[in-house]
């Protein structure tokens, strides 16, 4: 089956998807309760969409299409409030965060949906280890070539999003010393990482995808777990490297940071993307996962090393006029606060662990953070 046609959409529109944890209120372990929660939510209109995810202890929510920070944040807050209310009725807690700090992956149950069963059959234990929680941001593109241009131009900024959103320092009960341990789980999948360096949609669809399909390895774009992938049915590119932050406020901030950055890139004032940019891609990505905002990244064009924090702050200065034009300055404030002052949510969770010495208390703080905001 050929790759479906790229459905053009309004440039710089955006939508957010968040995978959330379902936690029991007793010992704060993951709770296989997605069925119960989805059943209850199905009784009333939901201010967005909510769908099951791979395992029974996670759900995914998605916003509609937005152009500005205010309405996006409002919808995310409405979704959050509806979810928390439904969770309260069922004695289920909800939390953000890229990993659950101490869940046992082998206890997770695959959600009863044919695609999830098929993935579980193919990937074995990796499917259950994939009980990790990410934020995906879609940015609308007016043409498929624009989508590929943006996808590759963003390569040097990927560490920003990993570091800013990182909220998964703990895994299997211990501090992994990574700010984002979640991305290591994603990396285990054979079709993860970066997209091939192709800038023309015609070449991507008719040459690359056709070849891949003929190998029998992929059937649709869903089979690629790339950090950024085109989404032809929505007419967007989808950034998938972010951990789910602990608050919807940060999630909205990250989405609008990406939107403003894309507006800046589309002016094409920066040197165009090229294959060599990817020489440092995996290294930069590792630095962001391991050290968060304190990581050092190499600028692929200048080959200079700079801390991710400094690069984020420098980028904020460049894109401020775009955020102003997009009516999203409040989002940049949130990002500036994160990079310059309060740190990412991995630091927040580590601080809670320092205070309490307990991973259960870390989950408790995640639950409270989602419920009450920053």
């Amino acid at each position, binding site marked *: 089956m050929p790759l479906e046609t790229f459905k053009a959409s309004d440039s710089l529109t955006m939508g957010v998807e968040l995978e959330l944890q379902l936690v029991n*209120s007793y010992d704060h372990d993951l709770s296989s309760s997605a069925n119960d929660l989805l059943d209850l939510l199905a009784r009333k209109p939901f201010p967005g969409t909510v769908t099951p995810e791979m395992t029974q202890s996670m759900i995914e929510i998605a916003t509609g299409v937005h152009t500005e920070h205010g309405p996006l944040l409002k919808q995310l807050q409405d979704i959050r409030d509806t979810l928390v209310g439904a969770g309260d009725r069922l*004695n289920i807690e909800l939390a953000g965060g890229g990993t659950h700090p101490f869940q046992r992956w082998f206890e997770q149950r695959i959600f009863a949906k044919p695609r999830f069963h098929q993935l579980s059959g193919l990937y074995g234990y990796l499917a259950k280890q994939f009980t990790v929680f990410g934020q995906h941001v879609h940015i609308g593109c007016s043409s498929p070539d624009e989508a590929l241009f943006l996808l590759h131009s963003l390569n040097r900024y990927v560490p920003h999003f990993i570091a800013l959103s990182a909220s998964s320092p703990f895994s299997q009960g211990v501090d992994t010393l990574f700010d984002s341990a979640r991305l290591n789980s994603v990396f285990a999948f054979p079709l993860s990482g970066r997209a091939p360096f192709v800038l023309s949609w015609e070449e991507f669809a008719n040459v690359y995808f056709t070849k891949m399909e003929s190998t029998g390895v992929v059937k649709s774009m869903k089979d690629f777990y790339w950090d950024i992938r085109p989404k032809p049915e929505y007419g967007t590119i989808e950034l998938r490297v972010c951990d789910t932050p602990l608050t919807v406020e940060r999630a909205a901030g990250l989405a609008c940071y990406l939107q403003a950055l894309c507006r800046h890139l589309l002016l094409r004032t920066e040197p165009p993307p090229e294959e060599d940019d990817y020489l440092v891609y995996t290294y930069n990505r590792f630095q962001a996962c391991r050290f968060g905002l304190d990581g050092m990244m190499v600028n692929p064009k200048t080959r200079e090393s700079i801390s991710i924090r400094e690069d984020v702050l420098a980028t904020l200065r460049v894109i401020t006029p775009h955020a102003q034009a997009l009516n999203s300055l409040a989002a940049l404030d949130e990002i500036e606060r994160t990079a310059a002052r309060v740190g990412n949510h991995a630091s927040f969770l580590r601080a809670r662990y320092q205070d309490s010495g307990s991973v259960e208390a870390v989950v408790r703080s995640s639950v409270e953070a989602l419920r009450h905001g920053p």
Partner: protein
Amino acid sequence: MVQTDFAFLLQAIAWPLALLIAWVAGEWLLERWHVPRVTSYVAVGLIGGLINLPGLTTDIPGLPFLANVALALVLFELGYRMNLRWFRHNPWVLVLGVVESLATFGVVYWVSGWFALPVDHRLIIASLSISASPAGVLRVANELRSTGQATERVLHLCAINCLMSVLALKLVVAYWTLSTSGDIVLAAFNSVHVVGTSIAVGGLLGVAVSWMLRLRGAHERGVTVVFALAVVLLTTAAYGLMLSPLLAALTFGIVARERRVHLSSAQRDFGTAGDMLSVFLFVYIASLLTWTDVTHTFVLGVVLILARTVTKVLCNLAAARLSGISERKGVLTGLALTPMSAFAILLIEQTRLYGFEPAVQVLAALAGMMLLQELFGPVVTQRSLMAANETHVTKE
């Protein structure tokens, strides 16, 4: 040459041998046919009683205390799993628990009228029938690592049932004391004092232990040990003060939970020591039943179980939608509340120890019901939770 006294030896090793056989049978039958472990333990106790295994007697001093400690640990864990704030967000769960308890009391009292039983016996049977067995329900739920709405509700309703059952029984005991002795002070002592003081002692210990743990910043494993020792202390004190160790332990758990000291999931069932005590509890409970009583009261038992189960299922079905779950899960929650014996038997045993004479006859009258509940109750709970898709052995 020293002569071995085989009769004495057999008598001495009867209990440990029975417990070992029960454990092995539990593991084997679970693996082979998914029989809940507790059902196997009960079966071994029953068979031991039936073949009159020498030494497998309940006359050994200290056994009732040990059984109460075992059940108190379970009740503490059940209390610790209760989330009182849930009742504020979803009052229907609390209303359901109370209404279902009262309905069960009424229906069982009415149905027991079909048999030639004295009124005070009927009142006691009705009070006991409110309860669901925390040991049976919690053990099965933990064994299956079950999570979901049916599991959550079964555990919360079980705790409410147990509380209501103790309250009802204490009222009946007060009524009996008043009608036999005419002593209103004694009647009040037997009810208000026992209930009130048990709750107060359990609550106080909950506050004190949580405060101590917070002060010391104990490790998770240490927390579990401290809680277990506190439960032993509580049971001993409750015996000395002639209070209800079961009610005190449940309150202790609820208050400790509200004070929030984390019990890690690794310490569910109180680890290996909890497993051992659980084997003992179920074998002991089964050995309390007399087979002649069972045969005489079999029909009564079947009728009472049906009445009790139908009431619980209908109440849960009626409240399902209102409380946010599907009718199917409501029915399965009601069915999962089937086990009742361990708690009821210890409750009535303890009431007997405190001088409540009708307890002996009631225990005999309930033999048929207890036997069936002990053997098949945990299986019904297990199958209900599996049918609710809340367990790991469920076909996904």
